[in-house]
């Protein structure tokens, strides 16, 4: 099957998922992001790469952090940014996604950044946009959140220097997590020798081993001797759907505490895609502790998103 996110020449046309992207391309994005790292530290935080381009943030599902970092990234590249919270506007009036896309195309959009509650929504929009428009998936259902996956790889590379000798544990609600799918895909592509998944059976998709991960039900075992621990957000709905009895019991079994963290390597880093539920999946002591890199993740997110946008617009990474 043809990968819809690559041009016939193998360049990035859309960013919909990390699944199937070659390691060289992932590294190229991370390298490009590295080159944008100093832009945020200048007095004039702008480069003119996307001057005159119109970027639409199409959020069919509410989000603050992701939308904001995309907006900042686009503005640092000198693009014009329009934010549309469609969850609260025309979709509720019965306009279809394709109508929305057609209308924005008529307003001379160059790039859509899409968040949607349905897996595959970004693929769907990418299939229907005009040839000059690029689509960036900012999270679709449970499927993928590629820029989050990339910024996590960027963070790991910064703190660990590479991927070759690492043991990484992803802990929590993998079943419902688009972040986890993008992370697992990137970690395995970039050659991490041991990717672990730690969760109760009710929060794991069937056949998850086929994604190339080792399964652990016991968190104390699962994070033992790990270099990187990635905590996933647990939503309250999971208690209603009979997947878990209570947040209290979940925290006891799978919440990251200082005591559990002591089982990992002494220099292990702790990551979280945010927003955090303190006292549910992570203890404040750890979230704010010396091994936490949760805030740097947010900072790096801007550089990574700049890199992706620049490469899609053809302005960077060549």
């Amino acid at each position, binding site marked *: *099957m043809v990968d*819809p996110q690559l041009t016939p020449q193998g360049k990035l046309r859309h960013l919909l998922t990390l*699944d199937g992207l070659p390691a060289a391309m992932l590294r190229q994005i991370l390298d490009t992001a590295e080159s944008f790292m100093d832009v945020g530290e200048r007095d004039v935080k702008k480069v003119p790469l996307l001057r005159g381009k119109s970027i639409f943030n199409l959020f069919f599902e509410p989000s603050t952090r992701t939308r904001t970092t995309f907006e900042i990234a686009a503005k640092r590249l000198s693009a014009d940014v329009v934010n549309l919270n469609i969850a609260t506007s025309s979709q509720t009036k019965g306009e*279809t*996604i*394709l109508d929305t896309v057609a209308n924005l195309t008529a307003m001379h959009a160059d790039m859509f950044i899409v968040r*949607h509650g*349905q*897996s*595959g*929504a970004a*693929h*769907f929009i990418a299939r229907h946009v005009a040839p000059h428009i690029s689509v960036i998936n900012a999270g*679709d*259902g*449970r*499927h*993928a959140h590629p820029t989050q996956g990339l910024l996590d790889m960027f963070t790991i590379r910064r703190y660990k220097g590479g991927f070759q000798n690492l043991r990484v544990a992803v802990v929590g609600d993998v079943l419902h997590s*688009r972040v986890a*799918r993008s992370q697992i895909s990137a970690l395995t592509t970039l050659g991490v020798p041991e990717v672990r998944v730690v969760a109760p059976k009710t929060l794991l*998709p*069937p*056949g*998850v081993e*086929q*994604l190339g991960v080792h399964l652990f039900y016991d968190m104390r075992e699962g994070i033992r001797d790990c270099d990187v621990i990635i905590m996933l957000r647990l939503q309250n709905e999971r208690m209603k759907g009979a997947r878990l009895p209570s947040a209290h019991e979940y925290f006891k079994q799978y919440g990251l505490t200082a005591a559990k963290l002591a089982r990992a390597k002494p220099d292990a880093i702790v990551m979280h895609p945010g927003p955090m539920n303190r006292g549910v999946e992570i203890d404040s002591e750890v979230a704010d502790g010396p091994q936490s890199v949760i805030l740097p993740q947010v900072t790096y997110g801007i550089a990574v998103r700049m890199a992706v946008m620049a490469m899609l617009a053809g302005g960077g990474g060549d």
Partner: protein
Amino acid sequence: MKIHIKNGRLVDPKNAHDGRADLYLAAGKIVGVGEAPADFHANRVIDAAGCVVCPGLVDLSVRLREPGYEYKATLESEMLAAAAGGVTSLACPPDTDPPLDEPGLTEMLKFRARNLPGPRVYPIGAMTQKLEGTRLTEMAELNEAGCLAFSQADVALTDSQVLLRAMEYAATFDYSLWLRPQDAFLSRGGVAHDGPVAARLGLPGIPTLAETVALSTILLLARETGVRVHLRRLSARESIAMVRAAKLQGVRVSCDTTIQNLHLSEMDLLGFDSHYHLQPPLRSLADRDALREALKDGSIDALCSDHTPLDEDDKQMPFGESAPGASAVELLLPLALKWAREMAVPLSQALDLVTWKPAQVLGIDAGHLSLGAPADLCVFDPEAEWTVSPALLRSQGKNTPFLGQRLQGRVRYTVIDGHLDYEA
């Protein structure tokens, strides 16, 4: 109208006939096989050289969308599509709006269908009122109005006591129940087979257990009540083994599967194309292969299209929001032929699964070319290749996952009740 079909290869699975023979039709009946009756003067001679002449196809699951869903398709468009697919008899499930739960509605549907060109229409009556799964319909009244069997269509029946009562009541009159095994709770929220592809794509899953748990309930209750049950659209390997075992125990059960489940699998979902959003979901390659084998060894009794025409907007959505189903009645024959070629199955065996065998399931005198039988038949060119495209489909629904595929086998003529209802 007297028709003489000459020079064709006559394939009649029921009568184990496969060879060159002419066919003579008059007054809606087959009046001559191989030789003309005395004083036969044809009004129309069809030269079927290079073509196969076979019984008209009997499709056990075709949605005609009337009453209630005329914006998706009309009786007229779908009857024409069925005729163009070589189908001369079809059963339509009761999931119309309102559902077929009253004699008046079925009589009206039959009356409307009779006055249009196209196949004979056999409505399947609703098993419970409004398909709500609480009160039984007037099965005897519906039977008098023309319902040969009763079904919940795709609406799950969660109350197993109601299912037991429906079986007991149907068994009283020896009516057949057509059930699709799917547990409402285990399939809740799911849109794809709960396997590695859904895990990768983040699509909510429908586990095989949703089918086998419901199937196990149906088989146990059927054994207890002695009712005749036809299982619609099986999708999983394990289901086949369960049905096989039940048949050996003497449970009066038959089953079918669809051309979609026979040729496609979960692997086809990888591009998120909503045309592959189907019910039952496309399962693993192992499941698909088991269905292909089971059809060959006779464990599955019939092949159907499960024709579900949708309007464009139903599919122009992200996978999980799109409506499930495929427009398929025109592809039943070429996809049966494709399976036969790929599995090295004789043509006659493949045609048996879309003619005589489904006619037995439905309990109608159709699907064979015996002397004196109804003149329902299909003439097709087995070599003709064509590419599935919206323009070539006569159905109002263009929603098929086979768009763009090269298929072999094209219907040239369809005769229904002695009338030439379709001519390519």
